[in-house]
C-alpha cells in the first residue's frame, strides 16, 4: 500500500484531520475524567485563543516559537535525520541573542541589533548541533542519542553560566540584566494598534519566522543543496552513488537545523523577556517535532500546525483560569496525545482509508 494510491487531499488533509480528531477525542475523555464538561472546555479554549485581540496576539507569539523549532526539525527530516536537540540548540541560541543585545543595546537602535541577534542565535544554535552532526557523519553515532545528551549538557551549561558569568552583579536571580531599548524588538501592538493585541508579547520576530519559512522552502525545493538534502534523505546509498557527499550533507543540514532552532530565542529573549533567563525554552524544542510531523515537513504545513499549537498554548492558559480544575498541565497532555496520534500512530487509520478509497473496479480487477 503506497502513499500514491490516495488522492493528495486525503493524504495531506483527511488523515491528519482524523489523527487530530482522535487526539482531541482522548483529550476530551481526560477532561471528563477530571469532572468537567469537555464541550465547555473546547469553547473556552477556542475563545481564549482566537476570540479577542490579545488572545490572538498570544497565540501568534507562541506560534512564532513553534515555527522556528518546527522548521528546524523539518529541515533535518528532509535529510532523513532526526534532530531531537532543538531544545538545547534553542537554549544555547539564547546566548547569541543575549551577547548581541548586551553589547549593542545602549549604542544602536533595535533594527541594527536585530541582524546581529539573528546571526548570533543561528551561529550558537548551529554550533550546538555541530558535534552531534559531525559524530553522526564520521563516527556513525546516532544523532538522536547525541542530541538528547546535548540537551542536558546545554541545560547544565546555561545554569552554570547564568549563575556565574552572566548574572547581573548584586542580583540573586540567575538572569542577565534587562536589555535597553536597543535590545528590544517592537511589539506588534505598537506597530499595528488597530489589531488590539493589548499586552500580548507578539513581536516583529513573527516576520523573521515567516521569512525563515520562505527561505527554507527555497532552500529545500529550489536549490542544489536542497536537492542533495532530499536525495540523501530519500535514499542515502543512491545519493552517495550519485556523488553527494554524506559527511557534507549531514553536517550542513544539521547546522541549518540547529541554526533555525537557535533563532527561536529571538522571539523569547529579544522579543518578550528582554533578558536571558533560565529555562526559557520549556518544551518548545520537543513540540517542534510534533509541528514538523503534522505540517508534513512543509513550511506552509508548519505555519498551520504552529498556529494550532499556539492556540493550544494560549487557549489552555485561558482554560486554566476559567476552570481551575484543569491546570496548565492539560496542555502537555494534549500535546502528548497529538504527538502520539499525529506522529507515532500516523498510519493507524491509513489501511481503513485506503480500503475506502480504492475504487471497487480496481478491487474487482485485483481479484480477477
Amino acid at each position, binding site marked *: 500500500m503506497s502513499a500514491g494510491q490516495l488522492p493528495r487531499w486525503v493524504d495531506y488533509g483527511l488523515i491528519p484531520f482524523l489523527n487530530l480528531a482522535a487526539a482531541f477525542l482522548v483529550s476530551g475523555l*481526560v477532561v471528563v*475524567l*477530571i*469532572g468537567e464538561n469537555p464541550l465547555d472546555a473546547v469553547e473556552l479554549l477556542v475563545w481564549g485563543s482566537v476570540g479577542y485581540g490579545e488572545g490572538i496576539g498570544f497565540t501568534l507569539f507562541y506560534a512564532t516559537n513553534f515555527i522556528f523549532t518546527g522548521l528546524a526539525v523539518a529541515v533535518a527530516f528532509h535529510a532523513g535525520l*532526526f534532530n*531531537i536537540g532543538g531544545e538545547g540548540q534553542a537554549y544555547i541560541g539564547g546566548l547569541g541573542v543575549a551577547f548581541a543585545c548586551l553589547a549593542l543595546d545602549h549604542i544602536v537602535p533595535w533594527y541594527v541589533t536585530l541582524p546581529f541577534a539573528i546571526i548570533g542565535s543561528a551561529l550558537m544554535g548551529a554550533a550546538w548541533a555541530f*558535534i552531534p552532526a559531525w*559524530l553522526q557523519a564520521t*563516527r556513525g*553515532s*546516532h544523532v*538522536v*542519542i*547525541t542530541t*538528547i*545528551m*546535548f540537551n*542536558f*549538557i546545554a541545560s*547544565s*551549561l546555561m*545554569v*552554570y553560566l547564568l549563575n*556565574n558569568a552572566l548574572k547581573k552583579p548584586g542580583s540573586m536571580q540567575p538572569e542577565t540584566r534587562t536589555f535597553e531599548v536597543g535590545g528590544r524588538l517592537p511589539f506588534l501592538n505598537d506597530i499595528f494598534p488597530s489589531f488590539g493585541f493589548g499586552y500580548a508579547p507578539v513581536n516583529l520576530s513573527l516576520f523573521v519566522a515567516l521569512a525563515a519559512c520562505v527561505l527554507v522552502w527555497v532552500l529545500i525545493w529550489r536549490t542544489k543543496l536542497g536537492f542533495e538534502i532530499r536525495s540523501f534523505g530519500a535514499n542515502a546509498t543512491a545519493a552517495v552513488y550519485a556523488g553527494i557527499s554524506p559527511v557534507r550533507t549531514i553536517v550542513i543540514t544539521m547546522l541549518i537545523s540547529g541554526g533555525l532552532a537557535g533563532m527561536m530565542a529571538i522571539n523569547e529573549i529579544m522579543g518578550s523577556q528582554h533578558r536571558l533567563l533560565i529555562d526559557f525554552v520549556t518544551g518548545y524544542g*520537543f513540540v517542534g*517535532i510534533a509541528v514538523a*510531523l503534522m505540517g508534513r515537513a512543509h513550511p506552509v504545513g508548519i505555519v498551520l500546525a504552529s498556529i494550532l499549537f499556539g492556540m493550544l498554548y494560549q487557549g489552555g492558559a485561558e482554560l486554566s483560569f476559567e476552570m481551575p*480544575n*484543569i*491546570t496548565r*498541565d*492539560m*496542555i*502537555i*497532555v*494534549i*500535546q*502528548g*496525545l497529538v*504527538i*502520539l496520534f499525529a*506522529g*507515532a*500512530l*500516523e*498510519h*493507524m487509520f491509513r489501511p481503513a482509508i485506503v480500503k475506502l478509497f480504492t475504487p471497487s473496479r480496481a478491487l474487482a480487477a485485483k481479484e480477477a
Partner: protein
Amino acid sequence: MFEIVILTLDSTVRLSTPLLLACLAGLYSERSGVVDIGLEGKMLGAAFGAGAVAYLTGNAWIGLLAGMAVSIGLALIHGFASITNRGNQIVSGVAINFLAAGLTALLGQTWFRQGGRTPSLPEGGRFRDIILPYAEELRDVPVIGGIYSELLSGHNILVYAAFVAVPLTWWVLFRTRFGLRLRAVGENPAAVDTAGISVTWLRYRAVIACGALCGVAGAYLSIAQSSGFIKDMTAGKGFIALAALIFAKWKPANAMFACLLFGFLDAVAIRMQGQKIPGIGEIPVQFFQALPYILTVILLAGFIGKAIPPKAAGIPYLKERS
C-alpha cells in the same frame, strides 16, 4: 576519611538503584529492536501510580503493583505504536514522556490538591530499610563493620532487587531460549520470522518486561526513596539510564557498573557542593550533572571502545507480503 568513602558509596547505591532498574528495562526493549526514549515517562507514571495507590491503601506492595501497572500500560502504548502500527519509535517515546509529565501533574492536582504531589505516605505505605542479620553487632568492627553495616545493610528491598535483577537479566538474555530469540529479533527479525517465531509477540513481551522494570524504578522513587510523589520527580533519570544503557553497550553487567558510576558522580556532586579542592578550587555542581552525558557522547564518538546498538533497533519490522 574511610567513613566519608563509605557514606559516599552508600548514597551511590541508593542513587544508582532507579538508574539500574530503568537501564535494565531499556536493555530488554532495545535488545529486541524497540528503541525506548520513553523510560523517563514510564518511570514518572509509575512513581505517581505507586505514590497514589500506596497512600490510599497504606500498602507499599500494592503501590508497587500499581506503579508497574501504569508503566506497563504506557509500555503497551509504545508497543502498539511502534510494533503494531510500525510508527516512529522516537516520536512515540517523546509522546509518552509528554503524556506522563502532563497526566501525573494534572491528575495529582485533581485528586489530591497539593500542587501535583501525592500526600505523605502512611505507615506501611513505604518500603522500609532492611537491617541485615548481625549488622548491629558488627558495627564497631573496623573496616568490615563499615562495609557490612553501613554499605550493605540498611537498604530497602527494591535496592537489593535491582542488584539481583542484574545476574537474572544476564541469565534470561544469554542462557534461555527466550533470551536468544529476543536478541535475535533485535539483530535480524527476518531470520526469526523465517524460523516460524512471531516477531510481534516477542517484541511485545520485551516491551512488557521493560514496562515492569521501569515500574519498579518509578515506585522506588516515590514509595521507597521518598515518602510520596512529587511533580517531575524523575528529573531526567530516565535519560541518564538511557545514557547508561549506551555506555554499557547493551550488556547487563556493564549496565550495573555504568549506573554505579553515574550514581557515584551524583553522590560526589552532592557531597562536593560548596567545597573547595586544593589547587583546583570549587568544581561547579553542574559539571557533575553534565558529566554522565559528556562521558556517553565521548563513548559514542568511539574514543573509549565502540557502542554498537542492536542492528535492528529502531526499525519497524514489516513482514513481506506476497
